């Protein structure tokens, strides 16, 4: 039997189109499953987690790596937290918490963003824009820094300074956000003051600067900029990596 070249090409073309169509339909079906499965349940489904990873990684590389670093372990220059460790500054690390942060951002201006508190700048005349807090003297800030360093197992140059700093921790209302145990409060985004919670570097100079001049990190709101399925995929991927870390 003679096989003519145009016929072969036509068959190949139809086969390729069929394969693409099947792939597109499979993908569409997975996207639908990802959105329709309840978030925490989706995070337990290996097929969905794998699909989420394939979808999330390019989006994370394009939009998030600029602040959080290529490996997503955070960047102290940007004050951007590690996205794949077990510490969550906002929320409890559930898929739905992560999804909310991605959708609405942090101090982004979105009506549903996380924007309940900032770190005051205690050396300033008016340390806090939201309500009145007394300023601290430079020496008091040194004492506070000594106390926090001591809490982190780092030896203070002057042990009495750490002791004074402990009293100041209450006087300056630090506990109000960071809690008495200094473990932070994820409902308002106050980071832990214990190891791993330091967003802006662990040097003494960085710590003194944070206490003196304050901080208020920003994360954009992605709702409307990223498709809902991508947001869900990122949330599931980050949750998965965090759980495995």
């Amino acid at each position: 039997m003679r096989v003519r070249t145009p016929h072969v090409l036509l068959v190949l073309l139809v086969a390729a189109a069929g394969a693409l169509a099947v792939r597109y339909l499979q993908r569409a079906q997975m996207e639908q499953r990802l959105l329709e499965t309840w978030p925490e349940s989706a995070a337990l489904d290996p097929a969905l987690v794998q699909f989420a990873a394939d979808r999330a990684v390019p989006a994370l590389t394009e939009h998030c790596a600029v602040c959080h670093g290529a490996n997503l372990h955070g960047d102290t220059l940007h004050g951007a937290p590690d996205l794949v460790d077990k510490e969550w500054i906002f929320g409890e690390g559930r898929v739905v918490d992560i999804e909310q942060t991605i959708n609405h951002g942090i101090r982004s201006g979105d009506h549903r963003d996380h924007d309940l508190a900032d770190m005051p700048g205690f050396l300033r005349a008016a340390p806090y824009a939201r309500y009145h807090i007394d300023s601290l003297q430079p020496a008091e800030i040194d004492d506070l820094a000594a106390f926090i360093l001591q809490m982190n197992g780092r030896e203070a140059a002057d042990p009495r300074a750490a002791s004074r700093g402990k009293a100041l921790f209450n006087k300056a209302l630090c506990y109000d956000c960071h809690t008495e145990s200094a473990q932070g409060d994820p409902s308002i985004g106050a980071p832990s003051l214990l190891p791993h919670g330091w967003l802006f570097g662990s040097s003494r100079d960085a710590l003194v600067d944070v206490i003196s001049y304050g901080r208020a990190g920003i994360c954009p709101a992605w709702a409307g900029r990223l498709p809902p399925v991508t947001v869900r995929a990122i949330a599931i991927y980050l949750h998965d990596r965090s759980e495995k870390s």
Partner: protein
Amino acid sequence: MNSPDPAAVAARIAPAPGLFSGISWPADGRLSLVLLGLGAVLGLLAAGFSLFTAKGTATRSVPAEYIAVVNQRPIYVSDYLDQLMTQFNVSIENASVEQRRTVLDEMIREELFVQRGLELDEPSIDPDVRNALVSAVQAQIAVDATSQVPNDAELTAFYRAHLERYSSIGYMTVADLIQRPDAGGPAAGESLTNAAAALHSAQPLAVVKTRFGLEESGAAVGEQVYFAAKLHLGDRLFAAAAGLKSGEVAGPVKAEDGRLHLLYMVANTPPQPRTFALARNEVYGDYRQDLLRRIRDREFKYLEGRADIRINRAYQP
């Protein structure tokens, strides 16, 4: 050249016998007119159904990213999940049927009222709705500004252009000396001048105070940040003190209280530019505010430019 046989041509273009072979078609092109009329009637029926019933154009299936579609307006699953968390502090897995139904009912109710509010043109009547709309548009601009993450080159340029904003806050420990009321001897001016000379010659502060009958005014006790020192000392004394290095003396200076003061600087740490790395978070915040202001101005100019605004001549400002 031979012309084609008309009978053969007619046979070629005649409809093949089959499905419609039993129907007698109107002759003389009336078929096209009948089909055209039928199409028009069907089109009008569909348009009327769509126009007079919202359900006429309703999507039959709800896309996966929406939890509901109300008159073609979607309610997002993500908003529903947020609302469940906000209202009951539960994820959907742990929410009861009652909680899920409550949130969904409330969101549908809200959507219906919003749509009704637009039908009633509430934005043009209710000042609260107007304010809410203005702030919503401004917030949306802020969201847009936030999504434009600047690179470090842009931030560094902004930092350099506004270096004065990113200086550390200076602080000083200064002895603000005045003559004791019970001090005898020469007049305050002479006494303070002599005290200044003694301090210049490196005599200890305590000795000079005793020798010349001086005391500290009590205005600036201990270490003071610059803004506090300015507040406590007053503008004139602060201006004289700020330029002193540790161990230097200024005065006598006549302060706002009318008395002569002598200033001895124990320690002075003037403001220094903070490094970009330390100030970056603040630079980003300021950059964003600056960008936001520019975008809002641009948005307003754009809206103003495309708007037809006419002002009553009697009320021209």
